[in-house]
């Protein structure tokens, strides 16, 4: 990374790819979800993925984590072909996936417990990460006692607590109110600055995709494939000023119009089929 | 593994399990004394003999009469009492702890007292079966009728339903699936009551078959009787489950 005099760090050029997605395809029975996905994600890079609902974003993350087997192509992380969930990769699930019988503390501790981290260390790390996502004081609460946003933050803390090198985020802020969402976005960016990882960030929000990503991947079509990869070219660390920069608006408009084309096309096809 | 392949595999493993079970039964039976454990083939042939001689059908009929009468009475009383308890608060408050207590009491403990009061003929046995079967119907009906959505009652009232129409259109249809869950549990309990009363009061029916052939150390016939009770129970439980699903058909997707 190159440091400039104004304290702004330019994004690292996608260095040696940490995640390599090579000709990935997935089918469910007759349904072909996506085809021929090729993408390389650098060691300290955040790649946002946007696309219409049902286009296979979650399925793609599952393939990257080795939770489902692709029907074509492969995913390599650090050169290793992924078949089962690799170490150092953590997922923040769209469905939260909190265990209802565990408290916030125990849910956040889950990954660490499974990898046999000593008790003392677990406690320190868990408390730190609960604090980090702003849930201090809720350690003993059960998931049913939390709002959707708080549950999602617990899931985030659980993933961060394992200090992963790769973070796969599936709409992590989808069920969080607008203010908290903005706070958490910058919070996550701050955490990332202090501990940069490779991150795949799936979202429905175009603003969020542009704000978080070094690149924005737009999925389109049925079966979907990568329609376009847009370099955001925004400086890091990203602060609130980014949101009002001309570049941000430019990229946002671009992504928006790309997605709208698809929506219009779908509408046209629907009309023609009538 | 595709869905169908998985199903096929399960089916063949199930069949294998049945064959294996029968094989083990046969093997153990052939290698133990006949007076303590009969082989599968001996049991099946005993079952055939008892059926052909009319002994099993007679016993089955006698047991089923007791069972059906007991279950019927248990359902009627349990259902009505459950509804009354649900709609009349003072009755519910008063009776709830005693119902819970009777539900938790092993009803077999009351058989000697019933014997003392009612003798050991059909009437006494019927009381035993009813005492076994009434509680699940009652408790489930009560729970169902109490959980009727108040908004639905409001809707019915806003359409100026009379009390009777309210029951017919709202409360009873809503409650029946719960009652049927109770009926399924009651079927199992009435069967226990049936066998227990045949063991301990006047011996007839399937229970009697078990007792007399045990006394004769004729395990082939005992196991045949047990096997037919098992088949009967499985069949009755299947009917119970069918009823439950039928009455709950509107609940799908709720």
């Amino acid at each position, binding site marked *: 990374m190159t440091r400039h005099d104004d304290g702004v760090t330019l994004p690292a050029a996608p260095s040696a790819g940490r995640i390599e997605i090579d000709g990935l395809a997935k089918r469910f029975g007759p349904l072909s979800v996506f085809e021929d996905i090729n993408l390389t994600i650098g060691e300290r890079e955040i790649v946002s993925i946007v696309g219409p609902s049902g286009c296979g974003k979650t399925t793609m993350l599952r393939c990257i984590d080795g939770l489902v087997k692709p029907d074509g192509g492969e995913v390599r992380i650090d050169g290793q072909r992924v078949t089962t969930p690799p170490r150092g990769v953590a997922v923040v699930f769209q469905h939260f996936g909190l265990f209802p019988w565990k408290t916030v503390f125990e849910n956040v501790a889950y990954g660490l417990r499974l990898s046999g981290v000593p008790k003392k260390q677990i406690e320190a790390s868990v408390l730190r990460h609960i604090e980090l996502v702003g849930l201090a004081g809720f350690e003993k609460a059960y998931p049913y006692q939390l709002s959707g946003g708080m549950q999602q933050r617990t899931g985030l803390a659980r993933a961060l607590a394992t200090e992963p090198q790769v973070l796969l985020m599936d709409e992590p802020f989808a069920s969080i109110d607008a203010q908290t969402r903005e706070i958490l976005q910058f919070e996550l960016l701050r955490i990332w600055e202090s501990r940069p990882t490779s991150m795949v960030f799936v979202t429905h929000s175009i603003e969020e995709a542009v704000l978080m990503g070094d690149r924005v991947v737009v999925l389109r079509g049925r079966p979907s494939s990568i329609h376009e990869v847009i370099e955001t070219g925004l400086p890091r660390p990203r602060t609130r000023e980014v949101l009002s920069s001309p570049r941000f608006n430019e990229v946002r408009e671009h992504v928006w119009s790309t997605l709208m084309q698809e929506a219009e096309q779908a509408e046209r096809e629907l009309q023609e089929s009538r | 593994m595709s869905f169908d392949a998985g199903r096929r595999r399960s089916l063949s493993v199930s069949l294998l399990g049945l064959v294996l079970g029968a094989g083990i039964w046969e093997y153990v039976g052939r290698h133990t004394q006949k007076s303590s454990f009969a082989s599968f083939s001996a049991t099946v042939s005993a079952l055939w003999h008892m059926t052909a001689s009319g002994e099993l059908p007679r016993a089955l009929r006698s047991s089923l009469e007791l069972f059906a009468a007991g279950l019927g009475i248990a359902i009627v009383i349990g259902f009505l009492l459950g509804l009354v308890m649900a709609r009349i608060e003072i009755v519910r408050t008063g009776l709830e702890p005693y119902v819970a207590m009777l539900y*938790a009491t092993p009803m077999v403990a009351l058989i000697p007292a019933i014997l003392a009061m009612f003798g050991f003929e059909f009437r006494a046995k019927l009381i035993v079966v009813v005492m076994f079967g009434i509680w699940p119907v009652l408790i489930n009906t009560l729970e169902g009728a109490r959980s009727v959505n108040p908004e639905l009652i409001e809707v019915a009232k806003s359409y100026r339903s009379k009390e009777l129409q309210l029951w017919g259109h709202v409360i009873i249809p809503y409650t029946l699936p719960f009652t049927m869950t109770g009926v399924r549990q009651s079927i199992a309990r009435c069967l226990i009551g049936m066998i227990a009363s045949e063991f301990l009061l006047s011996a007839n029916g399937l229970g009697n078959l078990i007792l007399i052939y045990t006394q004769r150390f004729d395990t082939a016939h005992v196991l045949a009787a047990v096997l037919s009770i098992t088949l009967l129970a499985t069949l009755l439980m299947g009917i119970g489950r069918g009823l439950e699903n039928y009455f709950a058909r509107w609940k799908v997707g709720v």
Partner: protein
Amino acid sequence: MSAVPQSAPLVRPFVLNPGVRKLAIRIGTGILLLALWEGLVTWLAPSYVARPSGVARVLPRVVSSAEFRSDAKVTVVSVFEGLGIGVVLGVVVGLTMGRLRDVDALLRFYVSSFFAMPLIALVPVMTLWFGYTGTVRLVIVSFGAFLPVCLNVYDGTRKLPAQYVEVADSYHARWWNVWFGIALPASLPYLLAGFRLAAGRALVAAVIAEYLVSLKGLGYFILYDSRTFHQNEAAVAVIALALLGVAINSAAGFATRRLLPWYRPS
């Protein structure tokens, strides 16, 4: 009384505290039921039939007698032994069936058939296998407790939401983590519901075994005293069994609330 404001009614309407009212209704109903029992028996039944006044008269003597106490102890101990064995086996087999399709296919038929049938039908033939011994009671109680626990744990494990397993997988959970760390806690509510059924069946099985095998215990106490026209004494044992059933049930309810603070029945 000058302190009373003008508008206050002289006699306040009599409103019972709801808790007190509930208790009063329950006690009242209890007294009513006892009176009904006493009246009906006095009126209609032979004099040796149990009635509340008679039970009350013999209660202190029976409860303090060594015979009753040792009989009660035998039954309670064997019910708890059987429940323990049944629950442990039920959890293990239920989990295995829930997680392994082949084991499920292999055993489901047997477990559900034995669950549907009245197990007590096996007691007579079991005397041929185990003799007239306590083994019959232990086996039938354990088996009776095993079946509902096994089926309920199986059911709970089968209904385990796939997303929990997905999370576990993504954190490299091994199979035993999934079985005992995910599937078991997720089916604990089912286990406790099964345990209540198991307790009921265990009690019935124990009493029937004592009747038919003439085993020392509360069941035999009831049978013997009824046959010798000591119905009031027998009733004390019946009440003891009822209390045991209620106690086990309440313990299970208490455990549900204490052990499963996270559980929201839908």
